[in-house]
């Protein structure tokens, strides 16, 4: 509770502080048995750290979802606005857009698809598909010289 | 031979009585014409040496691991009806680490030379003397060969000089093919719409067998070719001979055969690339035929031109094989081939498309005469040539133009009568159009396309002609 941000955060969303967005508690039963797998605790540790860092295992109220929706709308507006700034970002344009898209993607998956409040195994399942998809197709694109295409000059 | 260095001394070889032994033995003799052992050039040598290196590592691993397996099976087999339980071992972490680490070390030992050789063999040939450029274009199911800068075009038989690096620039006209001459270098796929490059060198003379290695359709098995490595002088002689005019036909059959050829075969096969403009224009001509073939796919049967890019036959009589490296070129084989190409090479396009086969108009007499003609298609002896007749010499403008008309490949698509082939018939062209139209149509073929014809002439056609040749050609066309 040291810093004001996390204090505000708790005040807004957590039960114990009687926050504004009353969040019903959910069954937080752990998978049985816990933390199985060849890596032992390593995977759950990382995921658990990520959990604590972002939210916690609760589901939210309509108001909360609406807030998320507004956030998404703002991000979209930002994207389109950046787009209209003619070359205002130069080489940073593409990474910036990808970052914004990724942010929207993660927000929808995490909150609207409530992966953040669900069992970590589901995150693992979805992430395996998503990460492998990104990884292999990035390799395809780089093998096909599409990541940093050479300038268009006639050979 | 440096492969021997990697082999163990002869007396220990008998230890390895494995199914792979023949491979090792073959590495020691020159072997067969399409073998990857007994190689004849630095590229294939390096690849074979790397293989032998990996092979012996593999043999060692094989002997150890299979040995352990077989020993275990024999030593620990159940004897009688011994139902007792053996020691219940569950595992051993030390062992796991060991048999993870050892393969990693072995693979590093393989990976280092691998990566080094990948980079060594990539790209253009090393900077060792002059490089011979050869353009290869793969077709279903034959190889178009061009010596750029030399004005020499041929097909299916590639002559190269010994001791000189050769740089192949390769395209495909239709599907993916793979260019492979095992004795000289590993294969390289040729992907349509893209260009591939492969460098190799022959250290010794000989006839090396090659074959398309990527499945490319019905006659894939018979898409072969030969690479003939000759002493540099012999190679130069061959290049020169390919630029000499054909020797005069002697037999009556051959003379009659020439007419049969012109009537039936000349729209697809060229025999005139001994002339420089013809050679320079051959690619354009074949590209036009290729477009005609593709356009045909969208037409009703009756409207098709039935043309297709076909192997160049200039000085065909000097070749060793026919049908894309299939069988040796003898008169009997040739007769058999012409009479029914499908019998020798099933799926070939000639039987499918050429008019004489479709309409069954070729008599056995015709076949005999054609074979006689093709067998006599040879260059004149070197001393018999006074002056290279490339169309620029002597005669009136109209005569020179007529010569250019043939040698540049115009006659491949245009008749001088009124019948339409791939392009419109040109009789009376001057009555229909003015000079500027004709000139523009030659320089910039896309400018005016007569209705009903496809724009198949390449944009760069005009570049193959000098302005004199162009003027002569127009003068000739106006007489039609």
């Amino acid at each position, binding site marked *: 509770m040291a810093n004001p941000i996390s204090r505000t955060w708790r005040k807004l969303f957590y039960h114990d502080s009687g926050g504004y967005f009353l969040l019903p508690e959910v069954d937080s*039963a*752990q998978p049985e048995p816990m933390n199985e797998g060849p890596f032992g605790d390593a995977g759950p540790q990382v995921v658990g750290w990520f959990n604590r860092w972002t939210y916690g295992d609760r589901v939210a109220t309509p108001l909360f979802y609406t807030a998320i929706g507004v956030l998404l709308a703002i991000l979209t507006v930002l994207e*389109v606005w950046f787009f209209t700034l003619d070359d205002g970002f130069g080489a940073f344009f593409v990474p910036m857009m990808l970052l914004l898209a990724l942010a929207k*993607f993660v927000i929808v998956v995490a909150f609207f698809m409530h992966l953040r409040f669900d069992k970590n195994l589901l995150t693992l399942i979805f992430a395996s598909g998503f990460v492998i998809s990104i990884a292999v197709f990035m390799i395809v694109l780089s093998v096909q010289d599409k990541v940093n295409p050479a300038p*268009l000059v006639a050979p | 031979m440096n492969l021997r260095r990697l082999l163990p001394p002869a007396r220990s070889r008998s230890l390895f009585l494995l199914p792979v032994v023949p491979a090792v033995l073959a590495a020691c003799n020159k072997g067969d014409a399409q073998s990857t052992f007994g190689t004849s050039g630095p590229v294939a040598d390096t690849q074979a040496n790397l293989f032998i290196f990996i092979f012996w590592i593999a043999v060692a691993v094989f002997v150890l691991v299979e040995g352990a397996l077989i020993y275990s099976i024999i030593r620990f087999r159940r004897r009688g009806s011994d139902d007792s339980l053996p020691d219940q071992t569950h595992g051993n972490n030390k062992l796991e680490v060991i048999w993870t680490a050892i393969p990693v070390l072995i693979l590093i030992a393989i990976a280092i030379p691998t990566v080094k050789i990948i980079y060594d063999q990539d790209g253009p040939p090393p900077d060792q003397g002059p490089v011979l450029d050869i353009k290869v274009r793969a077709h279903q199911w034959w190889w178009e060969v061009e010596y750029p800068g030399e004005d020499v075009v041929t097909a299916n038989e590639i002559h190269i000089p010994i001791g000189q690096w050769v740089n192949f620039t390769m395209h495909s006209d239709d599907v993916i093919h793979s260019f492979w001459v095992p004795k000289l270098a590993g294969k390289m796929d040729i992907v349509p*719409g*893209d260009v591939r490059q492969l460098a190799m060198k022959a250290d010794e003379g000989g006839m090396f067998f090659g074959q398309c290695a990527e499945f490319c359709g019905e006659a894939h098995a018979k898409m072969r070719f030969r690479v003939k490595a000759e002493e540099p002088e012999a190679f130069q002689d061959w290049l020169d001979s390919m630029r000499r005019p054909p020797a005069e036909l002697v037999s009556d059959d051959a003379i009659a055969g020439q007419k049969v050829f012109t009537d039936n075969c000349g729209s697809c096969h060229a025999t005139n690339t001994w002339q420089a403009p013809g050679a320079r224009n051959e690619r354009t001509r074949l590209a036009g035929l290729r477009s005609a073939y593709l356009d045909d796919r969208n037409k009703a049967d009756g409207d098709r031109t039935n043309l297709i890019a076909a192997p160049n036959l200039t000085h065909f009589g000097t070749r060793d094989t026919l049908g894309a490296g299939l069988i040796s070129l003898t008169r009997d084989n040739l007769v058999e081939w012409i009479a029914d190409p499908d019998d020798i090479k099933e799926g070939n396009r000639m039987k499918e498309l050429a008019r004489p086969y479709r309409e069954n108009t070729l008599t056995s007499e015709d076949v005999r005469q054609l074979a006689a003609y093709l067998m006599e298609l040879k260059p004149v002896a070197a001393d018999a040539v006074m002056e290279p007749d490339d169309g620029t010499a002597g005669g009136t403008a109209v005569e020179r133009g007529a010569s250019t008309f043939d040698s540049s490949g115009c006659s491949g698509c245009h008749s001088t009568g009124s019948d339409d082939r791939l392009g419109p018939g040109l009789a009376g062209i001057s009555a229909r159009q003015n000079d500027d139209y004709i000139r523009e149509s030659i320089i910039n073929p896309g400018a005016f396309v007569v209705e009903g014809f496809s724009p198949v002439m390449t944009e760069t056609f005009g570049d193959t002609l000098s302005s004199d040749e162009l003027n002569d050609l127009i003068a000739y066309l106006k007489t039609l």
Partner: protein
Amino acid sequence: MAQATLQGQEQHGNVADTNTGISNRKMLMWVFLASDCLFFGSFIATYLVYRNESLVGPYPNEILDIPVTSISTFVLLMSSLAMVLALNYAQKDRAGLARFWILAVAALGLVFLGFQVVEFTTFVDEGLTIHQNLFGTTFFILTGFHGLHVFVGVLWLLGMAFAHFKGALTSRSAEDLEMAGLYWHFVDIVWIVIFTVIYLIGFSDGEGIETIEHAATIIGG
């Protein structure tokens, strides 16, 4: 626990009597979505591999309409919000509100599809067809498959909205709605990627295309 009957598990997943504590259906849905990542990944990768490779126009920068697509993107994004609200109300046993929001989702989905139909017809009028060039081929097939997913989602949601069986759209069968919701959000996130990558980033494609044509002539020749 030991007397796990199959019954509860396939049809009525509210009872999470499984090793992982996740109902079978929900896990199935997530495995399917992971799998679908590769499906759309392949189509998007195909589009990207063929960026700037079309030999003839129209090119993206001549034809893509960012303002209009921004609106349809916004519509789809808001439909996701409506979806999550529908589920939220269903979980709180407020079937009426849930049904209202489901219908809102379906309506927004239909609006999005309407935008897509208009976009497609405009493009075809302007000469971009699936036969025209690589851009046409990859664009129509990618967005078309996405549209197909939206359409299936709309049908699914309408089915849910009009299913009036006992306990429909309440906490008892909320997982039915959750399945549809997961699917719908997935369709939304695919569009998030498509909108950014194909429309916003890919809009500049086609500039300097003459050089490409020239290069193609040389390579082809």
